[in-house]
């Protein structure tokens, strides 16, 4: 009996002094993972109440929804602003209105991007800016100014033709520019560069069948037809995985590449000597526009250690931690909170910041069925390219399917 009591007492003492675990799921690997791992270590040393554990999860979106469905989600999950509205609509993210974080230090657009229906649902950690990237050496060899990207859509076509190379049989060996790289494309972004929108901000109506959107995809298809659809299809089959040396841009198969600024990480890993140029994707009206995404952390509904998760966010919100977390990309902080050394250490940050300042930013719409919108959009561009649907028909199909799904949800 005495032994049992001692055992019980020991157990209670251990329990009283043990730290509770904060489980964090991220998509990062390699350098990006090491950064968050360092920050987690620093957090664990900074206090004695919680032990944060970070796990790199592949195919996070699917695993997260499955965990959410099973009632066993992590305490913090890495996402980006696109997924806030759909997951909140599913009832999957908690409101973070009461987190103890100085929101004043973040850029205004960043704070807006983590809000949905007037509430904050995420903590911003870094900003990704999209545009066209090119290898300056390739431009030089083709007789183009390596410091200047195409300024208009006409120039983009002209540059692309100059940069494209064929073999003796007429097959593509290097292609100037692929507007819809399979699995790594953002077809919806093109609509904004043609002056259109995906959702009418006033009415909430789906506007993917607008004349601007039709014009967008007719332009994209005409562009592809310039190089021959069959040749393009075959050439695309040789694109290697994104995070590898056979990434079509890294391996030189594509001369100009539309992507987020994380592409600089890929180059750092697989072609560190390459010098890249960056500019906004040209718009039809000549205006400079850039698509922006914000990486975030959110607390899922059903998280076991909400307090611990909020404590970790509080720790991360210190400017020095956020700067570290942003890696080679842009930090979500206002300039006055960003030390000048930030730009010196990061090779492309100054250029990216310049582009961001002179461009009109746009974000994906906060739409509860955004994940379906993306799916439908991907399918529509495949149908258009395969010739199984006309542009008008494919865009109308997106609208019809989404509206049907909205009616079903009611």
């Amino acid at each position, binding site marked *: 009996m005495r032994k049992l009591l001692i055992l019980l007492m020991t157990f209670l003492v251990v329990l009283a002094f043990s730290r509770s675990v904060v489980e964090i799921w991220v998509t990062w690997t390699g350098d990006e993972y090491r950064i968050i791992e360092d920050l987690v270590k620093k957090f664990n040393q900074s206090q004695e109440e919680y032990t944060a554990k970070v796990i790199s999860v592949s195919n996070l*979106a*699917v695993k997260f*929804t*499955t965990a*959410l*469905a*099973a*009632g066993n989600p992590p305490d913090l999950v890495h996402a980006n602003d696109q997924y806030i509205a759909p997951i909140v609509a*599913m*009832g*999957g993210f908690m409101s973070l209105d009461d987190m103890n974080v100085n929101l004043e230090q973040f850029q205004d657009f960043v704070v807006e991007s983590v809000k949905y229906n007037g509430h904050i649902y995420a903590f911003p950690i870094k900003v990704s800016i999209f545009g066209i990237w090119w290898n300056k050496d390739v431009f030089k060899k083709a007789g183009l100014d390596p410091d200047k990207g195409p300024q208009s859509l006409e120039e983009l076509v002209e540059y692309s033709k100059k940069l494209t190379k064929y073999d003796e049989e007429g097959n593509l060996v290097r292609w100037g520019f692929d507007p819809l790289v*399979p*699995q790594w494309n953002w077809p919806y972004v093109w609509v904004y560069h043609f002056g259109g929108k995906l959702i009418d901000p006033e009415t909430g109506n789906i506007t993917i069948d607008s004349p601007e959107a039709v014009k967008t995809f007719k332009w994209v298809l005409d562009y592809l037809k310039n190089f021959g659809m069959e040749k393009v*299809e*075959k*050439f*695309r*089959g*040789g694109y290697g995985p994104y995070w590898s040396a056979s990434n079509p841009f890294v391996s030189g198969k594509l001369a100009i590449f539309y992507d987020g600024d994380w592409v600089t990480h890929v180059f750092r890993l697989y072609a560190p000597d390459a010098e890249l140029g960056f500019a906004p994707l040209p718009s039809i009206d000549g205006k400079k526009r850039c698509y922006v995404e914000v990486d975030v952390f959110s607390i899922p*509904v*059903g998280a076991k250690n909400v307090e611990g998760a909020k404590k970790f966010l509080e720790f991360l919100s210190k400017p020095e931690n956020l700067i570290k977390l942003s890696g080679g990309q842009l930090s979500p902080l206002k300039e006055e909170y960003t030390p000048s050394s930030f730009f010196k250490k990061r090779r492309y940050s100054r250029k990216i910041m310049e582009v961001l300042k002179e461009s009109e930013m746009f974000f994906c719409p906060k739409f509860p069925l955004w*994940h*379906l919108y993306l*799916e439908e959009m*991907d*399918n529509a561009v*495949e*149908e258009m*390219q*395969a010739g*199984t*649907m006309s542009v008008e028909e494919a865009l109308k*199909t997106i609208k019809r*399917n989404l509206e*049907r799904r909205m009616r*079903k949800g009611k």
Partner: protein
Amino acid sequence: MSRKRKELIAGLIFVSPWLLGLLLFHVYPFITSFYYSLTDFNPIKPSEFVGFENYRWLLEDNLFWKSLGNTLYFVGIGVPLSQLTALLIATGLYSVRRSRVMRTFRGIFFFPILVPEVVMVLVWLLMLNSEFGILNSFLKFLGINPPSWFLSVTWAKPTIIFLRLWFIGTSMVIYLSSLNEVPEEVIEAAIIDGASPLKRFFKITIPMISPVILFNFIMDTIGTFQIFTEPFVMTEGGPARSTYTLTMFIYTNAFQHLDMGYASAAAWMTFSLIFVTTVVVLAVTSRHVFYRG
């Protein structure tokens, strides 16, 4: 307690782990999924009973019909093709049954079954790569201009069917053992009567192994109705949803859209389809299947 009763209890105790597993992981989800198919069920929120609404939406859903069409294509073309190939290989091996060649080739044809499906699919992805894959290099060497197998709406489905031929090992081994069961005296009698090899095959061998053909056919049909790994890993259902199957439809709705009620309804539609197909196949073939004894 009588001896019979004791034996019954002992038997039940021995099979109870399996019975428990069956009840817990098959019967219970089977019944609950039907209930959930009648609800608007998102696991994060409380479910709401909606009757047959999910089924009604399903019948109006173009994507459901497209995935059904693709699945039927795989079943309609893939199953006869793979069964025919398995039977031909088994017959070929049976004809050299007394040599070592048979054992070696039986092992070779069965080997792909031992490799995890995803690994095999990834290897095929590399071999069929349009730019640097071995098949296209060979076709180019022959002067043929090869297509991009997985990015072409025309070729994606036939390519997947072709890949599934890689997994015919089990059917082939079953055919081979059934061929061994065909009585040699009947064959010998036919030879004496002057029947040609082709006639012997169609008039004696095929009827004798017809129950096995039916079994393999039904098992393959059920398996192909549930085709998932190949389209999911190779094409993600594309291009233009040309390889999007019923199981992908169920998976996407359940685990990506968290619309479990809708996914359950689709799963029950798939089950009904498999059930009806099996019953029809059994009814149609009953007159042509010869059961010895």
